[in-house]
């Protein structure tokens, strides 16, 4: 089943083109990761899917009934705002204690209900955000640089958790990251983005694609690319 169809989407922010003619899709149960350097429009794609940004051209097609869980980038909660984990998870919809306990345990942080949000560690905080998304019983889980600020061990553990969640809920997962080596094992497909889709495919093929190497500067420039990609788009914007 098709979950999301991003169809020739272009977005400009403040007069500056951020996304040009971006197309990709996501099927049920898939884990797809968008990688790209800073400013490549990764988060903008997600915001367009969530509906926070209206594309200038093209469209995002999703089934109207799609339940969506969204895990934002590390968000800042002001010290002046006292809020327990349980209250945070009950916003804006009221959730039962049992549901909250279940979501926290699925996200790997059981028993945090009465903690203050501002007292959580970075890893706990992101898992609480994951729990919040799981409360929607999502068919599609969207994660925006969910491991920013975590160390590599923490990131890897977080993505393993996401894999477990996918296995138990059988939801599709779309995530954004700039660390391909961390998300690699968890992803079914990778989309390399730099304003437009540079290349896409399995993690291994993207990792060896010249476009990817040109963007991230890893590996040898002249290495044989195993990944055969279409040459129907230009790269002069690089």
């Amino acid at each position: 089943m098709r979950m999301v169809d991003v169809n020739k989407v272009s977005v400009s922010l403040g007069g500056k083109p951020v996304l040009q003619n971006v197309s990709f899709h996501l099927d049920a149960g898939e884990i797809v990761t968008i990688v790209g350097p800073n400013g490549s429009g990764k988060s903008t794609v997600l915001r367009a899917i969530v509906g926070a940004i209206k594309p200038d051209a093209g469209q995002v097609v999703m089934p109207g009934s799609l339940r969506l869980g969204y895990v934002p980038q590390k968000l800042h909660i002001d010290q002046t705002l006292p809020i327990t984990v349980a209250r945070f998870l009950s916003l804006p919809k009221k959730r039962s204690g049992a549901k909250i306990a279940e979501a926290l345990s699925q996200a790997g942080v059981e028993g945090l209900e009465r903690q203050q949000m501002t007292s959580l560690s970075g890893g706990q905080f992101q898992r609480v955000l994951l729990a919040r998304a799981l409360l929607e019983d999502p068919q599609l889980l969207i994660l925006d640089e969910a491991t920013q600020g975590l160390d590599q061990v923490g990131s890897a553990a977080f993505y393993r958790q996401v894999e477990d969640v996918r296995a138990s809920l059988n939801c599709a997962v779309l995530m954004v990251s700039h660390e391909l080596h961390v998300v690699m094992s968890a992803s079914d497909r990778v989309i390399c983005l730099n304003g437009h889709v540079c290349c896409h495919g399995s993690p291994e093929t993207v990792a060896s694609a010249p476009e990817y190497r040109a963007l991230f500067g890893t590996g040898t420039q002249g290495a044989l690319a195993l990944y055969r990609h279409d040459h129907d788009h230009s790269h002069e914007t690089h």
Partner: protein
Amino acid sequence: MFDDFLVRATVAGIGVALGAAPLGCFVVWRRMAYFGDATAHAAVLGVALSLATSIPVFTGVLVVALSMALLITSLNGRGVAMDTLLGVVAHSSLAFGLVAVSFLNGIRVDLMSYLFGDILAVGHVDLIVIWIGALAALALTLWFWSPLLLSTLNPDLARAAGVNPKRQELILTLALALIVAVAIKIVGVLLIAALLVIPAAAARPLSQTPEVMAVLAAIIAVGSVIGGLQASLLIDTQTGPSIVCCAAIAFFLSHAVRPLLAKRF
């Protein structure tokens, strides 16, 4: 019982305190203290305009406070930093208001009563207007409590949950303008922001959830109104500033008590 000026003053003050306290929590959480200040300072311009056009002061202040708040919201993020923008708008509207007042030939304006409030002069009609305005602000805040709270936590999270954060901002702005319009009689233009911010800030160390903070802020605000009125009677001081002094004392007390509470956990 409303024939006693002190009873009217107390009831009016309590009305404003109840409306301002939960709203004040949002002002604190969203770091909008100076936004409240700017809206309140614009009220002087509203006073001058309503005296010049002989419309009710409440209406004039409401209109000007609201348009000022909308102006700030729409100018925000257009290359001028928020604090600079607020500094410009707050002080220039205060200055324009004061200048406009001096054009009002023939009308004697007791400017002090607008700058510092005149709670002891609250009449029967004032009382009704104040309670309607304060209850409307309170109703807006409570009705939209959850979506307001979520947009305050994170706009993207709100959008993902189907809440439009821009709309929530507008609701908050409207409630703020309402409170400013009714509070001008109680504490005056210069101290309205204090009535919003200080009770909420005083409630913070004693609160574990946003709801507890709002309720505690309301209790502290009501206590400050009663305390300030009694103090001004006993020691013959300006009433508006006395109310704000009481709230400030509550703020220092609650922050002094915080370390003692922390040991318990």
